């Protein structure tokens, strides 16, 4: 009878209740399996020696990893992804954090409307954003005359587009951190003689840093994952890792995509751990115990 507490049931639970509870656990287990197994199943396939996408039968090999790490096509893609994601993260985190700080000031005018505008790039279907940016980049600033410069097929164009898609995440995470932020700390700092810059560096930043860092991670991941904008406004020079995987599936089904997927899964685990640690730190700082 000692399995009853395990099911979270009181000792007087009826047979039907126990059976129902068991079914519930079984169902949840299957859903969790459905969530995790597709991701895990790619990993052994990436070590298959043959060029078929199946489980390794007898020979295990790392040839697809060699292809991933040493083939120009993939290394260039990784390099491009890192460059674009790096600048996107910096730009999006700066713009998003500043905006979140402004928005969280008491009685900010038309807060809801401004917030809705700032978050909208996240909600608008990315194909529409990409198409609009393609037209815009062909001739920024003016509609009719000959374009002064063109942003299509440039790194700057892709970075600006990714920044646009990434800032909503930064705004959301930093705003969430700031909801528990005591505004009188700023006044306290100022009354003790600290100039605004020092208050920001010594008081505000340490308190909101978990939100800023997880916002930065979201910004990084947004850019790192993004493929539609790159398809529309980038050229083969801006070919990123997701772009390369996209054509890897579409054009030539190379098992290297499974090696790439495995590397990206390891990265996701790393991010997950970081975010979890940050969340705990934030809760500690805000004095919330779970």
């Amino acid at each position, binding site marked *: 009878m000692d399995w009853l507490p395990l099911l979270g049931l009181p000792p007087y639970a009826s047979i039907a209740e126990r059976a129902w509870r068991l079914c519930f656990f079984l*169902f949840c287990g299957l859903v969790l399996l459905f969530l995790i197994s597709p991701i895990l199943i790619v990993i052994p396939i990436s070590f298959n020696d043959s060029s078929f996408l199946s489980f390794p039968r007898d020979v295990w090999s790392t040839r697809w990893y060699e292809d991933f790490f040493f083939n120009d096509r993939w290394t260039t893609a990784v390099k491009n992804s890192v460059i674009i994601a790096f600048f996107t993260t910096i730009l999006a985190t700066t713009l998003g954090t500043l*905006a979140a700080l402004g928005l969280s*000031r008491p009685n900010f005018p038309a807060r809801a409307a401004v917030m809705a505008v700032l978050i*909208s790039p996240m909600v608008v279907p990315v*194909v529409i954003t990409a198409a*609009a*940016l393609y037209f815009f980049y062909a001739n920024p600033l003016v509609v009719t005359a000959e374009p002064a410069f063109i942003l299509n097929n440039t790194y700057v164009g892709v970075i600006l587009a990714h920044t646009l898609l990434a800032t909503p995440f930064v705004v959301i995470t930093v705003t969430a951190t700031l909801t528990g932020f005591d505004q009188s700390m700023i006044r306290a700092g100022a009354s003790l003689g600290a100039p605004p810059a020092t208050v920001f560096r010594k008081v505000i930043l340490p308190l909101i840093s978990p939100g800023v860092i997880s916002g930065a991670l979201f910004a990084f991941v947004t850019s790192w994952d993004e493929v539609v904008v790159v398809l529309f406004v980038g050229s083969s020079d801006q070919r990123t890792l997701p772009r390369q995987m996209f054509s890897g599936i579409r054009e030539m089904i190379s098992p290297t995509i499974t090696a790439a997927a495995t590397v990206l899964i390891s990265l996701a685990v790393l991010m997950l751990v970081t*975010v979890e640690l940050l969340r705990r730190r934030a809760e500690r700082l805000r004095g919330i115990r779970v």
Partner: protein
Amino acid sequence: MALAETANFMTIDGVPLKKRLAQAERSRKLKAVGLVAPLFLFVVLTFLYPLAVMALKSVTNEETSGRLTRTGAALAGWDGQGIPDETGFAALAEDLKAAQQKREAGEIAKRINSEFSGAMSKFKGITRKVEAMETGPYKELFLSTDKVWSDPALWRVIKSVSSRYTPYYWLAALDLKQGQAGIERVPADQAVFIDVYTRTFWIAGVVTLFTLLLGFPVAHLLATQPARRANMLMILVMLPFWTSLLVRTTAWFVLLRTEGPLNDLAELLVDHRFEMIFTRFGTIVAMTHIQLPFTLLPIYSVMKTIPPSHVRAARSLGAGPFMAFWRVYFPQTVPGIAAGCLLTFILCLGYYITPALVGGPRDQMVSYYVAYYMNNIINFGQAAALGGVLLIITMVLYWLYNRLVGIDKMKLG
């Protein structure tokens, strides 16, 4: 009394306190606005403005209005009955000649062809003929070349595309067209887009429903387990959430293939290989997998706030387990369900990559057609109008989300 007294307080430099406070308040507000301004301007300039430019493209005759100015002027007085007189023919001839010199006559022909099929070759033929002629009269030449030039319907199309703005793309995006008697439906064999929208809504709806059915019990489990175990299980939900969309799509692409591991298993069990890749089934399974955390997490965070004592109280008052769940627990989770499902539905409407990689030709959603008209057909007006319809639908749902949930309540991770 107290208020009146405060009004008379002075600061040390002789300014009424009330005024000083207002000043301080204003400068604080300005500072806050200043912090938001860079991002706000960035979004307006590189997002809202491009969207406006795209909206303009969807109602503009970009390919023709600038190139058929003479024709437009000449046909301005024509009532659309019968065929125009010599001035109309001459103006079209001159416009075609000018366009041909700049090698742009093909663009005009292509645009008119989209509304009057078969016009492409007629235009090519007549352009070659008028090029050889120095001066008119042209009407004779047109009519003797092809009898299509005596068709008033063609001339009505020419007149309509020579104007600056056109409702054509928006009507076409809704499977409508401008008929002689007003707006009418296009013939059934040409009506494609309503079908695409229905399909998009259907897929988004089914995926949302599945994520709710799968996500709700798991959210409940996570919310009611002891913290340590819940955290462990949460990893299983969060790992897919942090894994690249391309990786998850790749995984499903590998899994669903006819030679893939799932079919290996099926062959072992039931000795049959199923067709799963490039099907509606595959698309829905992959999208459900990708969207599941988005539906689950808002429901989970609402469930966390429901005290377990509520259900216990209901039970102690004599409610059965189902009644206690249905009348006490479930109603409290509705805000979470609304938030999660609405978010998933909005995101599903815009799916492009996953259906493109694991779906078949009959499973492509609106976004695919926007991309198709942009990159393959190079018909920007049509792409813009198709996207415009999708954008309006999304914005209405976004507004609803904002009203029901509140954008600042959105939680990530």
